[in-house]
């Protein structure tokens, strides 16, 4: 790694002063696990890193609303904190399920929820899950604060809609009664590899009828992407082989999947058809 300066502001005002909207060599750092890999590979050579670890208040903690309708999760919350939170395990079990195949204990002890989103690597596991859950991000900056759906953070491969002096402060995650969710990580070489395809599904089922759902594809596309056409096929439908096949075809038709080292486009399209159907069947089986 090349030399840089690290600053650790204790207030948001100080953080905004230290960030620079014009200079890409100045960047916030959360847990730093992803940024460290980029710096070690010399893909990113910072001049100043602004650590968010001394910011407290809204940047930390996991709180559930008094009426149980949702969570507020501080952006510096580590994956381990999420994974071991009894309230999260109870109300959003898909998070603990996703952690089972996400990196390893040491990375989960350090990586932060906000940094994971700001990194915007489409192969990451949690972003599609947040999108499927309908989570929103609270973004703060020197010009004020805005709350946006998590999917609006991503603009493409490692590209976000956040300005260089904006910070993800917290997530708002709804808990919807009667909904269930699942994340499918499809790797094509080794189990611990980056996924060729990630599929997050949340749905409200009534027996084998799908009342409503959110389907999100990641890894095979340049950002976590809602599969609106496939959702339209499935919304209100009875789960069956013909419907699932039609949904799979709709998903393939509405996405632009490219070949890469994890598989050809045709292969990943096939994975999408197959795993979309399996994911819906798995959700239905969970609720019986």
């Amino acid at each position, binding site marked *: *790694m*090349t*030399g*840089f*300066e*690290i600053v650790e502001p204790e207030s948001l005002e100080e953080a905004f002063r230290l960030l620079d909207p014009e200079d890409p060599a100045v960047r916030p750092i959360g847990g*730093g*696990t992803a940024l*460290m*890999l980029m*710096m*070690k590979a010399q893909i990113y050579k910072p001049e100043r*890193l602004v*650590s968010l*670890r001394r910011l407290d208040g809204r940047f930390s903690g996991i709180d559930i609303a008094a009426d149980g309708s949702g969570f507020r999760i501080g952006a510096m919350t580590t994956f*381990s904190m999420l994974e071991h939170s009894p309230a999260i395990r109870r109300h959003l079990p898909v998070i603990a399920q996703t952690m*089972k195949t996400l*990196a*390893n*204990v*040491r*990375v989960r*002890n*350090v990586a932060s929820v906000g940094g994971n989103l700001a990194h915007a690597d489409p192969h990451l596991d949690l972003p599609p899950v947040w999108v499927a859950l309908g989570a929103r991000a609270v973004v703060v900056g020197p010009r004020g604060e805005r709350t946006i759906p998590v999917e609006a953070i991503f603009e493409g491969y490692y590209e976000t809609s956040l300005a260089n002096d904006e910070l993800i402060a917290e997530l708002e995650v709804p808990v919807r009664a009667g909904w269930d969710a699942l994340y499918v990580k499809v790797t094509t070489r080794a189990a*611990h590899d980056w996924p060729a395809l990630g599929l997050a599904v949340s749905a409200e089922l009534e027996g084998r009828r799908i009342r409503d759902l959110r389907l999100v594809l990641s890894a095979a596309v340049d950002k976590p992407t809602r599969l609106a056409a496939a959702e339209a096929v499935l919304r209100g439908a009875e789960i069956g082989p013909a419907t699932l096949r039609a949904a799979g075809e709709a998903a393939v038709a509405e996405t632009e999947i490219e070949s890469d080292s994890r598989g050809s486009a045709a292969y990943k399209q096939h994975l999408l058809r197959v795993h979309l159907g399996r994911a819906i069947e798995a959700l239905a089986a969970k609720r019986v």
Partner: protein
Amino acid sequence: MSSPRTIRFTLNGEPVSATIMPHETLVDVLQHRFDLRGARESCGQGLCGCCTVHVDGKPVSGCLFLAVFADGARVDTVEGLARGDALDPVQEAFIEAGAFQCGFCTPGFVMMVKQLLKEHPEPTDEEVRHYLTGNLCRCSAYPEILDAVKLASARQAEAARRA
């Protein structure tokens, strides 16, 4: 401007300080400033576990952890486990089970197993395998490592019963 900075932390129970550059990793600082060679960088990407140390009681990859973030923290390494000549029960179990050949990955495994047994005092095979997915042994001593974890767990349970 990149300039040196002094950090203070507790290392294996002793208060220490070091003047470091902001881009130095924790494993580099432990190796070169404190001559602690147990945690070592191997893959450099957080995948292999050879650089495992505990920061504030939690295992981290020392190769992905900037040393400045250890400022004010408690850092524990494999060198802090033994009490004089008496090895830690996890270290003894690794020796008795023959859970290594070359030994390069062993400090990392031992530090992970310490925490594994805190979280799961009597782990199932599945829990052990899941917890240790991020530690690689190129000699492939995995069956013996599993035996060592079971042995350490049994010893720990016996000691707790006697206490």
